[in-house]
């Protein structure tokens, strides 16, 4: 558990950039900026080039931010087992639901999609429920998890 500071302006500015990138992708290429779908399609779709380009952009963005002096480093450590289990759950879940925080939580809600409203409400609720169970009950210790 670590303390974080309230950053409404930085988070709003970051959100505006995310919305801008989503707008750019749909107007330029008629694509929805849903990261889980873009990444999963890398393996199963024939159109790999633009998917790879988008994901490469996500990875090099922090380095480009560093060049402008806006880079903020993060200092977290997460157990490898937790990363793998969490990654599996996120991969299975987002593929079943056809979207994640970006595809449903941003693009879907911006399109006023009822599917995305249900998806977003569900993953928010379960995300809150999971953190609450792990941090405020004895569950984490009982399972041997180190609560993040």
């Amino acid at each position, binding site marked *: 558990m670590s303390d974080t500071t309230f950053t409404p302006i930085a988070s709003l500015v970051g959100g505006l950039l995310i919305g801008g990138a989503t707008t750019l*992708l749909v107007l330029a290429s008629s694509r929805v900026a849903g990261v889980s779908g873009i990444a999963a399609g890398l393996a199963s779709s024939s159109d790999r080039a633009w*998917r790879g380009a988008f994901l490469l952009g996500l990875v090099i963005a922090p380095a480009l931010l560093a060049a402008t002096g806006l880079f903020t480093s993060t200092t977290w450590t997460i157990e490898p087992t937790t990363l793998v289990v969490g990654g599996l759950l996120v991969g299975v879940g987002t593929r079943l639901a056809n979207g994640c925080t970006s595809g449903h*939580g941003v693009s879907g809600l911006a399109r006023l999609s009822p599917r995305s409203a249900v998806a977003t409400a569900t993953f928010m609720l379960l995300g809150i429920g999971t953190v609450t169970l792990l941090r405020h009950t004895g569950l984490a210790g009982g399972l041997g998890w180190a609560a993040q």
Partner: protein
Amino acid sequence: MGRTVTASDTRAQTPGDAPTGEAPTGEAPTSDRRARVEIAAALAAGIVFGAGLVISGMSDPPKVLAFLDVAGDWDPSLAFVMVGAISIAFVGFRLARKRSTSLSGAPMSLPSRRDITPSLVIGSAIFGIGWGLVGLCPGPAFAALGQGHADAILFIVAMLGGAGLVDLVRWRRDGDPDGATGT
């Protein structure tokens, strides 16, 4: 999904031939241009999206978990990410809806499904549990990798494996791997 296949096929068949005005030869430069525009746009969008994830705090798992910890020391910052992103994207999709083609020349097609299915709800629930366990979702995992957290690759590989598993099960059941795609 078949656009780039057509592009490369056409290109392979007509290396340096003078255009005759017929559809197959005339199509090649257009398809190449479309692919180039789409790759450049995707790279630019990925960079801006990734910068947004880093600046907003979405790629910092402790901040995400503090956002989800409403019963504890709640940090509501990330609600502002949604407000900012959705307000811009709302305008973006309205503009997109008025166009018949994208700037690359691709037909403008937006997701149109409206059915609330069990897999939508169950999948979102499973995703929420994974998100609450780690504090990473798909986009931020890639940005975190770029921030120097090499172990984010564990999350990414497991995530792609999980998605591949769903595709495999769906394909065995339906014989239609593409049935899984489309928001």
